[in-house]
Each structure stands twice: as structure tokens, then as C-alpha cells.
């Protein structure tokens, strides 16, 4: 992998107002999050509902404007540059809601071609058929409508659409969480395959650690709008360092009775607090088994270091594995 990130986000923050744009209470959906993804690499962004991972995804593709921070494509700020925007495309979570039911598959998949004026007439049709083949669908499907397809096939249509403008980065927001297990594996394998063939970078937003393990090279864990841990997928998922990542890992159940039964009676207490009114200090402190006074008053910053597996980082005063030398 080359040394320069294909897509980079620096210090992204986004505040919404809950219950109305004017009188609602502000809450910070994403606070000071940075990430970088290399060409051909998959970075997974993991967290539970309300952690800000979808807002982060929407900022990366330009569906939301960050309040602070910037997004760089090959080192250049994206902002309103349409040519750069085209390079980052999105695959949505719900294959039933994200495809217009009144348009044919041809028109759905060709939309990026139309928007960016990339192809018309016969070349447009040919390109769509090529894309459908690439995602494992019959090119003859182009004259049909979304309701004629199963959930897995619809997600393939969504992926074909995202690929139409030949992006360098695909942002996939929970692309398989609405699918059955057997079909989920088909779509995960398709994404891995497309990445190998096209060299695209993938930002994979998910809550399921097992799926993340199957597809990602690197992982970033978010909690209540903050990045709490990042690093190589092996490192983060097998030897998690932040107590929240440990809790997530401990709650994830695998199809192995001996292992799954170990989780009995070990649930982490509490639920993610209201993002309108996050706790002071570390946002995980009310649920954390390693909490101290420091955690309740000062918010820990992400400290990164580089080891054999690349950059690793944790935002915690009392990480589980203390051994590593951390430098800011």
C-alpha cells in the first residue's frame, strides 16, 4: 500500500439539534474524529446506535456538512469539488428503502452516470450491464424494478450504482445488517472481491464485529460521537485495549456453544447515555469497570503509536494492555 491516504478526515465534528432546528437541544453526533484510509484498504468503523458512525459516513460522502474539520481526497480538500466528490460513493443500509421503486434497475444504476454526465445512450446501457455482471446479477435485470429482487440482490444493485462513477472509495453504511446470514456472506464476499479487482478503498460502517473481522484491515471503534480505539483489525478485535471495545467483544456471540456460554451473566451494565447530555470526562465512564476520578473529569484524547501492525491508538487513561509506549 502506498504511503498516502486516498481519503482522510481531520477533526470532523457535527452537531445536530434534537427536537427542532431552532429550539431543539444541541447534541454532538460526532466530535473531533480523524481517520485515514489507504488505497485498496478496508477501514471498519464500529459502534452501537448513536455512536455517530452513520453521521461520519454521511459527512465523508458529502450528504452532511461537517461543522468543523476537513475531508481530503489524495491530500486535496474535497469541499464542493464535484469531480472529487464522484470519487467517494455510498452504499446504503436498507436495500428496500434506498432504491426508488418506480425506476428500473437501468435508471437506478445509471444515476451517477447521468448526474456526472459520464455516459448516454448505448454506452450508458452497456456500462450498466457491465456493472450488473460485476456484482453477480444477470444484465437482463436492467429492465426490471426493485421489488422483483430479493434483499441480497437489491444490495447488489445498490453496490452496482455506487460503482457506476468509478469511485476510488466506497463508504458502506451497514450494508449487510438487513440481510439473512447466508446472503450476508454473499455480499461480504462480493465487496472483498470487488476490492481486489478494482483496488478501491472501503469504509465499512458496522455494528457486527464478526462481519467486520471478515472484511476489514483496520478498525476504528466509536462511542457517543468519539473515536475510542483504532488499529489493525487483528489487534483491535482479538486484543482490544479500550474497556468499551472489550465490552463489545465480550457481548458479541459466536456460533460456538462453549464460547458463547462464557458470556452468560457477564453483561456490561448500563446503556449508552443520551447524546444530548453526555457525561463529563470520558463518555464511557458511567459504564466502565476501570473508572477512576480522572475519567470522570477529564476527557481522554486519542494517543497513537506505531508498531509492526501499523498505527494503533486508544483514548483511555487505563487501557487494558498498559505495556505499549504511547506518544501523542
Amino acid at each position: 500500500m502506498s504511503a498516502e491516504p486516498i481519503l482522510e478526515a481531520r477533526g470532523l465534528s457535527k452537531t445536530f439539534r434534537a427536537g427542532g432546528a431552532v429550539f431543539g437541544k444541541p447534541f454532538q453526533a460526532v466530535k473531533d474524529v480523524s481517520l485515514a484510509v489507504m488505497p485498496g484498504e478496508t477501514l471498519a468503523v464500529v459502534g452501537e446506535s448513536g455512536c455517530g458512525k452513520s453521521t461520519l459516513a454521511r459527512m465523508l460522502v458529502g450528504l452532511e456538512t461537517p461543522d468543523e474539520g476537513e475531508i481530503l481526497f489524495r491530500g486535496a480538500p474535497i469541499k464542493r469539488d464535484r469531480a472529487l466528490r464522484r470519487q467517494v460513493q455510498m452504499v446504503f443500509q436498507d436495500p428496500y428503502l434506498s432504491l426508488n421503486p418506480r425506476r428500473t434497475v437501468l435508471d437506478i444504476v445509471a444515476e451517477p452516470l447521468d448526474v456526472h454526465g459520464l455516459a448516454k445512450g448505448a454506452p450508458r446501457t452497456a456500462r450498466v450491464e457491465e456493472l450488473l455482471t460485476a456484482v453477480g446479477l444477470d444484465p437482463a435485470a436492467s429492465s426490471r424494478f426493485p421489488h422483483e429482487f430479493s434483499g441480497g440482490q437489491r444490495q447488489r444493485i445498490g453496490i452496482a450504482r455506487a460503482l457506476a462513477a468509478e469511485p476510488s472509495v466506497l463508504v458502506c453504511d451497514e450494508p449487510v445488517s438487513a440481510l439473512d446470514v447466508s446472503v450476508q456472506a454473499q455480499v461480504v464476499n462480493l465487496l472483498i472481491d470487488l476490492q481486489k479487482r478494482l483496488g478501491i478503498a472501503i469504509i465499512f460502517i458496522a455494528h457486527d464485529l464478526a462481519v467486520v473481522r471478515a472484511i476489514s484491515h483496520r478498525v476504528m471503534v466509536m462511542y457517543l460521537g468519539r473515536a475510542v480505539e483504532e488499529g489493525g483489525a487483528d489487534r483491535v478485535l482479538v486484543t482490544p485495549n479500550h474497556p468499551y471495545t472489550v465490552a463489545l467483544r465480550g457481548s458479541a456471540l459466536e456460533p460456538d456453544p462453549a464460547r458463547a456460554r462464557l458470556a452468560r451473566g457477564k453483561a456490561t451494565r448500563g446503556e449508552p447515555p443520551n447524546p444530548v447530555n453526555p457525561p463529563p470526562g470520558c463518555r464511557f465512564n458511567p459504564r466502565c469497570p476501570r473508572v477512576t476520578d480522572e475519567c470522570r473529569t477529564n476527557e481522554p484524547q486519542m494517543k497513537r503509536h506505531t508498531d509492526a501492525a501499523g498505527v494503533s491508538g486508544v483514548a483511555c487513561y487505563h487501557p487494558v494492555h498498559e505495556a505499549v509506549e504511547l506518544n501523542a
Partner: protein
Amino acid sequence: MTKQADERPVLSVSGLDVSFRTMRGEVKAVSDVSFDLKRGEVLALVGESGSGKSVSTRAVMGIVRGNATINARRMELAGHDLLTADEEQKRKLRGRVISLVFQDALSALNPVLSIGDQLGELYRTHLNVSKKEARERSIELLRSVHLASADKRIDDYPHQFSGGMRQRILIASAIALKPEVLIADEPTTALDVTVQAQILDLLDELRDELGMAILLITHDLGVVARMAERVAVMYAGRLVETGSVDDIFRAPSHPYTAALMASAPRIETVEKLEPIKGSPPNLIAPPPGCAFNPRCTHLGDLCTKVRPELIGDLPGRSRACHYPLVETAHVG
């Protein structure tokens, strides 16, 4: 398994068929499903969308919607024959003897009634207690599902609670009358994993306390592995394999069960996932022979011609396959 399950079944279903008439033809959602749920045990009914797992249990509860035709050879619940019971008798059984927790707590709770009113109503209609006593019992009940400051939150409405708390409230309403059977239909699917862990711990705890049996409906093999002693796998409306969780997870016999396990990603190992090719069949015109045959990798001559019956060689283990992966006779 902290308690040895009693051998007498509390719920016994045999030869259950459920079909729906639709514009495009008759949909056989459930065909010839039989299972016994023993006192105090957790039996998981596993399958993907459309496998008939939810419809089967709704038929048992007597709450199937739409123009369904339901037939069964036997349907017995704690000594009551559900096939001959009238609506009034069934209504009395629901809640007291058998109860249901749905996946979606937000739509299962009444949005315009306070939690106290919804729970209190259960006690007032079923046990005929005073309003005051119903309220006190409701607070007690909410404490038993570990809802924080139950006495202060009893007058709050469903939307004022988080997803995990709503699921606790729903479980509270399901166990209020101490049923012998709890049907938990995807009870944690809509929840975050750390909250899922809490709800599963709660179900374990209540099961120990009340001695109730749980029929767990889920698509999640991890939840099955964590919760259940026995498992029944469904595909296209039929049972394809049943047995103990330990046996089946160690050595699945039906190729569908094996394929489902191979397609599930695991955190500890990075292996290429093995999806099941194709998609589940159309239940209006299922393929001839075994319904799984178009997706099966262990196809033989009989599979497209003869539908395999569910047969068991050993007590407690059975499969519906002409060419099973492990001969059940040798397992044990």
C-alpha cells in the same frame, strides 16, 4: 444449564400446517412441524426470513393474522388441548400459561398509556385486584426486570424509555402472570450487542426464578449457542434438523444447518465466508423433493424427486435429509 429440564413436555405440537391464501396462490408457510418443549428448557427455533419460525409460534398462540388455514394433529399446552379450546379458554391461557415477547418493543407497547396503566391492566383483568394493588404489583414487576427507579418511572410513557428499557418492560408484561411457557420472538434483534447481553442475562435469570420454558425464535446462531439446550432448524416451512445444541453445533447433519454455520462470520478466525448460493425458495411453488436441493452442495439422486421425512435414529436427534453429513446413528 443450571436446572435439569423436566421430561414431561409443557407444550407439545405435532403435524402443524399453516397456509395463507394469497392472490398468487396458496402459500404453505408451515408444513408438518412437530416439537415438544419440556418444562424449564430453552428450545431454539432457528431459521432465516420466511422459514416459518414466527408463524409456527403464532399459530400456537392463536394469533395468526390474515386468512390463514391452520391444521395440526396435536397441540397441547400444560394439559390443555388447544385444538378443541374455544376463544375464551385460549384467551385465558394467553398470559397465564403462555406468553409472548416480540422483537419490536416500541410497537408492542401502547404509546398512549403509561407503563403503569399497561402493566396494571394485566393484573386488574386477570387477577381482579384493586387499582392500588395493581400499581404496587407493577412496580414490583418492573424491579424484577431491573428497571432503574421503577417507582418513579411507572407513570412514564413508552417513548420516554430507551430500546433496552422498553424490552425489559415488554418482558415484564410477558412474565407478569408467571407463565409456564415464554415465546421469545427475536427478543434482542433490534438491540445493540451490549444491551442484548443484558436482556439475555435477564431471560436466564427469570427462567431460573420462575422455572418457565422458553421457546426462542431467532436467526442468530450466536444467540442460540448462548441460550438454548435444544435447537430445531427450519427451512422453507419445514423442520430440517433437531437435536441438542452441543451435538448440532459440533456436527450438523443436514447440509442446510452446516451451510448456515459456515456462512456465519467469526471474530477469532479470518476465513473466507462460505455463503449459501441462491436464495430461499418461493413457498407458493417450492422445488420438488427437498426444498433445499437447488442450493445444496451434497445433492444426490433422490433429492429432486422425493421429499425427505424428518427421521430420528437417536432420541432427541432427527434430520430430514437423504444424504446426511453425519449418520445420526453414530453420534453420541
